[in-house]
């Protein structure tokens, strides 16, 4: 499993990577996961349904991450309002 974070000026960064079945690596993944949530990030797991439809699932704890998930993507929390300058 890979924990990725979307970052301005860089694109995604790999925060941690490990085998969820190995206790030591799972612990490291959990610590990295918590650090990001504590920093105010949202965590999403891209998923694919049986009919091939892709979507994402927001998770609030490591226990919610499907065991077979390949990636968890962290990104800044949504804030309402974009600048009018975008026009």
């Amino acid at each position, binding site marked *: 499993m890979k924990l990725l974070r979307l970052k*301005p*000026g860089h694109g*995604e960064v790999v925060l941690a990577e490990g085998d969820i079945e190995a206790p030591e690596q799972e612990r490291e993944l959990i610590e990295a996961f918590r650090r990001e949530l504590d920093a105010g990030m949202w965590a999403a797991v891209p998923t694919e349904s049986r009919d091939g439809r892709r979507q*994402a699932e927001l998770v609030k704890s490591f226990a919610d991450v499907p065991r077979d998930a390949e990636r968890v993507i962290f990104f800044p929390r949504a804030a*309402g309002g974009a600048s009018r300058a975008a026009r």
Partner: protein
Amino acid sequence: MALALGTATVVLVALLWELSRSRITAAITDRRVRKRGSAQRVSEIGYDPGRELRAEQRARSLLRSCIEDEDWAMYRDLGFLRVWGGLGDRARAAGASYAYLIYPHRPILAYLPQTGALLSEYCVAFPDLSRPYGSARLPDSDDVLAKWMALTADERGLIADANMHLPGRQIDPDQVRRDLLRLARWERERIGRSKIGRRASDVERAA
């Protein structure tokens, strides 16, 4: 007595000011220089076209790996992504009662696919307050990915967090209508191409 005390106080304050003036002035100047230096550093790392380009390339490849092939082709060819609405009377899929257009760093736009009527703009941003390179803005494709993930995972929550406005506040409605026409044409061409491809493979199989 009071007059003497008052005079002594004034003299004392004036003396203290004279003694500490040079130190205070130096401290203020030093602070200004430091502030100017840090602002310069921020502006130095603020924008690097090469870095921004690499960031966008990384973001595009991540977006491509997360969304469906057809959605990726749509974003690549048209510059925006359509996501079917999931809260209406019909399920999230082609034929849903409403849909969204996701543009990079612009509001999410809700519309009715059957009529092309624009419903509303949902202003939402994903600012990274740690500003790793002096900017809080994600690369374009990461912004689209963040919107797509939030919308497909928790449509109701994202829409509740967003600032809702009538269409036309930030995105020109004429431009959206043109984009919807481009999307319709793009879909027709894609269907046409896939029909031709299927016919060709049928002919090959028959031969």
